[in-house]
């Protein structure tokens, strides 16, 4: 498996650390209420199809990357810096 780092280009999977669903980037406001926080902390979709993950280019440039991939085909359709714009 290979992942394209938005900075370094296509790299071997062993350079990356898997964090989890990219939902981490959509943190609720502190006063969003217990339902929103319960959802954010504990509840995850388990899609048969497209999903968005957070990966860390640990053995590389140190960028956090949002990876869009398909759990059925293993195809990776997009990678982008979690920070938004490129630096």
């Amino acid at each position, binding site marked *: 498996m290979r992942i394209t780092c938005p900075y370094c280009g296509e790299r*071997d999977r062993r350079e990356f650390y898997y964090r989890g669903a990219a939902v981490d980037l959509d943190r609720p406001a502190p006063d969003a209420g217990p339902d929103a926080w319960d959802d954010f902390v504990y509840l995850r979709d388990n899609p048969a199809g497209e999903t968005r993950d957070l990966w860390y280019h640990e053995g*590389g*440039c140190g*960028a956090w990357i949002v990876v869009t991939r398909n759990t059925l085909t293993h195809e990776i359709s997009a990678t982008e810096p979690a920070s938004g714009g*490129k*630096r």
Partner: protein
Amino acid sequence: MDKLIAQTPCDGLLPLTIGAVSVTEVAPGAIHAVSAFQGQAKSLSEAMKAAHGMVLPAPNRAAGKSGARAVWFGPGQVMLIGPTPDPSLSAHAAVVDQSDAWAVVRLEGDGAEDVLARLVPVDLRPQHFKRGHTARTLLFHMNASITRVGEKAFQIMVFRSMAKSLVHDLKRAMEGVAARR
């Protein structure tokens, strides 16, 4: 108090030549991480050009030459190696002294790529990785910065604490390559 004796990271470990490939320790001079403030990459690049004669390298690229290099080290971060950073850089960037924190070696010779091919999951052959190209990647289990600095020469940087492992891993790979020649 006893007088302290300065030792380089690879003191007692290098130089090393096996077959056609050699590793030598590089005395890098000062090493500073230079990270542009938000939106100031362009003005930092101009200040670097004025003070040190090289612009800010793009991702996966290095600028300069032996004695004064700027090596891309990650998003928004460049390592200035050699000169003491001019004070003018600090108006545009966070400048952090990392001198002596890195082991810096030069791997050189016919088959240097073959040695690295045993350790590094990136294609470093000259058709893909030319002079002035740099990669943040793994060297066996170590985070490394690898830059092609010559036709048959690479500069390799790892954390200073990894110096012994770096030399061990390079040595083993060099022996393997030499045995197959």
